[in-house]
């Protein structure tokens, strides 16, 4: 039998209604879409949830102390006097020491592992090992700090005090744990961040830039210093700011080697305190609402500080990578 040329709709093997939904999967599709939206909004919302909860619980202390909390120098839960300055000071000083030390080391590692000074079979393991530091839990680094780094730094600290003691920076008798030890330990911990991201930035610079500079007669290091580092500067600064964010919030290792004393001393050899350290030490024991409130206030300050730093870092790094894609 030869089929006749019938009107279109009759030649179809299925009844045709394109608007008919797939009954079996429709609810699944809807649920899936809603679930994905819900999860995404909730994940992003966690950031705001954290901000809200910490602010909410800090409000008693904010009402009690106001902005004066920021420059209050005393901290006593028995007398219910709370001030943030010693902790802000300790946090900023240890982070500054860490950056001062980690930037040159981190950049050196980034250059050595991205340029051709060493053969590939040395470069890759070096890059791998440096990044391995980031995988070590910070409590283990703190443990090593207590038993190895602090005793190791003791002779250096004594020498600094004896020869440079007339400078206030080294004006106090070294005691072992202190701002300097905490800063050095932090430097070790943030080094992988600086090294790894700067390395990626340097590797992402187009090779033509390198060959152009070399073909104009510049030596390897002249190329690095005058061409590559300026070209990658935004990304490298992003790496440093990211490392700063990590240093500000780092808790365990610092708590274990800073000495935990509420004081503001100009001497780096003196002991001190940081915001994360006092949170770690006192939260479990805090019972009075005003004490908890004061700790929450400190947490809010730390959250705000790291938020600003990290937003700058993420924006910088994103801007650099977007530019690299456009190029």
């Amino acid at each position, binding site marked *: *039998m*030869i*089929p006749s*040329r*019938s*009107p*279109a*709709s009759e*030649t*179809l*093997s*299925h009844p*045709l*209604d*394109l*608007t*008919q*939904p*797939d009954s*079996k*999967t429709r609810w699944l599709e809807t649920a899936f879409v809603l679930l994905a939206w819900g999860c995404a909004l909730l994940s992003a919302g966690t950031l705001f949830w954290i901000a809200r909860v910490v602010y909410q619980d800090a409000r008693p202390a904010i009402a009690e102390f106001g902005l004066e909390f920021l420059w209050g120098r005393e901290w006593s839960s028995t007398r219910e006097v709370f001030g943030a300055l010693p902790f802000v000071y300790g946090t900023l000083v240890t982070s500054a020491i860490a950056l001062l030390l980690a930037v040159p080391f981190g950049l050196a590692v980034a250059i050595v592992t991205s340029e051709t000074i060493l053969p590939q079979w040395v470069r890759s393991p070096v890059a791998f090992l440096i990044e391995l530091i980031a995988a070590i839990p910070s409590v283990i680094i703190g443990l090593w700090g207590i038993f190895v780094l602090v005793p190791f730094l003791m002779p250096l600290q004594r020498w600094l005090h004896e020869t440079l003691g007339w400078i206030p920076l080294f004006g106090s008798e070294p005691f072992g744990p202190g701002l300097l030890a905490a800063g050095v330990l932090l430097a070790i911990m943030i080094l992988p961040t600086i090294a790894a991201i700067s390395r990626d930035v340097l590797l992402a610079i187009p090779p033509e830039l390198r060959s152009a500079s070399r073909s104009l007669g510049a030596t390897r290091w002249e190329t690095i210093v005058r061409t590559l580092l300026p070209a990658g500067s935004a990304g490298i600064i992003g790496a440093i700011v990211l490392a700063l964010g990590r240093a500000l919030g780092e808790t365990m290792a610092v708590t274990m080697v800073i000495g935990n004393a509420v004081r503001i001393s100009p001497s780096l050899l003196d002991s001190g305190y940081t915001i994360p350290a006092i949170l770690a030490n006192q939260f479990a024991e805090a019972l009075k609402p005003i004490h908890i409130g004061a700790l929450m206030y400190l947490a809010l300050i730390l959250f705000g500080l790291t938020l600003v730093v990290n937003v700058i870092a993420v924006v910088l790094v994103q801007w650099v990578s977007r530019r690299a894609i456009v190029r």
Partner: protein
Amino acid sequence: MASEERTPYDRALEPEIRDVSIELSEPPPSTAIEVQNLHFHYGRRKVLEDISIDIYQHHITAVIGSSGCGKSTFLKALNRIGEIEGNVNVAGSVRFFGQDIYDRRVNVNRLRRHIGMVFQRPNPFPISIYDNVAYGVRRLGRSRVHLDEIVESALRRAVLWDEVKEDLKKSALGLSGGQQQRLCIARALAIEPEVLLMDEPCSALDPISTMKIEELLRQLRSRYTIVIVTHNMQQASRVSDYTAFFNTDESRIGRLVEFGPTVQIFTCAANSSTRDYVEGRFG
């Protein structure tokens, strides 16, 4: 067996019943897809302008033209798969057996099951040959035995059955490029589409595999409406009944230059640029 009780799979096993050649003197065949004044944008960029064309049922329509003339985009507009790749804006209408496929209420998944697609590069899933063919069928919730029948029937229609019947459980990635492409055709056939869109299906294949696919297309023509985009003019003239020639200029906006029976386009095209193109003078 009464014809009402026959499933599409039974029909698949029946011998060819249509005469392969078409007579130009016959009354015009019925239209499967009717495109009217189609304007197509990706985001803000206009890709196609004012396309009007009828895709005839149970015939092969070839779409030819130089690269960048929007012929692939045109194909992707017919089953709305372009929407996966980017933000799409459409003006004009595309009617599939009378129903506007760009109607707000259309269930695009249903539409795409009626209008199947085969892509430029073979893209089997990295699962077994059997599961590849069953991929689109499984969701309909058929019994296991029935599934076996469907897979076999689809593979037979794609002329792949004899080559793979022993290896159905093996990974599809072990097949040759030509076999993979026929597997992709079988995968599309398994869900019983009315129309098969093919986007340069042979461009990644060697000449022998290409020949097999062309042979396969001629067999499929009796049951399916096929639209094939190709940059190969011999292929278009060998397999198609109708040919549409697309072209573009510096604006990069694709336009339909000429559409007609393939014989006419290749021997006595009305438009001079069509003649130039089919004679290989540009593009």
